[in-house]
């Protein structure tokens, strides 16, 4: 006779990792780092038509200290990169990063003297979204990839 039989349907047994991962992945708090046109598409993703709230990620925080998902959406110049690094450092662990669009991921068409050719040279990136700009569906898919990753993370 197992424990489940005694407790019946009121209680469910699981592992801490699985439960915390499930809670985390369904309440991601994104920090938007929108520096260019991609940020407009990110806003569209959040708004009613695509509604990122369906994935539990609608609580956009403009303070890095309250967020666990950094969305880099737009060009990052060499003058802006220290700012982005500081924001990343200010986010509490655990944290994840989406690099949205060609510019954030590789510099895009702006292969010039002033543009960082991919933010992953300076901060770790979990999911890259190709496109210029990516459609909201791509952003949603990236968020779901992050959710898969979050669900597998260790709780501590």
């Amino acid at each position: 006779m197992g424990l489940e039989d005694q407790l019946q349907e009121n209680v469910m047994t699981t592992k801490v990792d699985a439960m915390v991962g499930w809670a985390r992945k369904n309440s991601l708090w994104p920090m938007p780092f929108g520096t260019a046109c991609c940020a407009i598409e990110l806003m569209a993703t959040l708004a009613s038509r695509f509604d990122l709230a369906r994935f539990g990620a609608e609580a956009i925080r403009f303070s890095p200290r309250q967020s666990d998902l950094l969305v880099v959406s737009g060009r990052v110049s060499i003058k802006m990169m220290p700012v982005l690094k500081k924001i990343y450092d200010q986010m509490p662990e655990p944290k994840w990063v989406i690099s949205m669009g060609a510019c954030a991921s590789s510099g895009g068409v702006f292969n010039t003297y002033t543009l960082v050719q991919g933010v992953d040279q300076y901060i770790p990136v979990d999911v890259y979204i190709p496109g210029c700009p990516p459609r909201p569906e791509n952003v949603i898919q990236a968020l779901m990839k992050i959710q898969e990753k979050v669900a597998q993370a260790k709780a501590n």
Partner: protein
Amino acid sequence: MENQEEHQAEGVGRPGRPGRPGSNPEAVTARIRARFGDASVRDGNAVGCESVIAERDALLPFMTFLRDDPELTFDYLADVTAVDRLKLDEAVRFAVVYQLYSYKHNRRFSVSIPVPEADPRIQSVVSVWPGANWLEREVYDMYGIVFEGHPDLRRILMPDDFGSYPLRKDYPLHGKGERDNFVF
């Protein structure tokens, strides 16, 4: 009515449609030559408005005259920019260009001042049009032309420690390694 008479004054504009392009295209240059002498300016080659090429030596009295003369009244400095004519057939490499506008006469005017590469300096016009402040900083940032008398001549777009002037024609598009070696 009083205003209209003013526009009719010697060679400037025409009644009813003051200062439209084509309404006496040489009016401003004639006025400048009457004041500073025939040799003071050369005809410019701006497209769409009257323009002159002047020397940098007496820039401030010249610009102050453009602003204060009742028949010119260029009360608005729309832009300050520069041209690097490195590969063009020009004796002097740079030119600083001032785009002026007169609200009173609804007229635009362009002044180009050659600035040699060996001595890239020019007077600041912040004392004439305070709006020149950031415009001149941008020209300094991009071309390395120093504006003497500017109250706060720092870079405005590039980081402070950026060593080059990126809009100079001999500066490579991908930079000189700044994007890989910048300071955090």
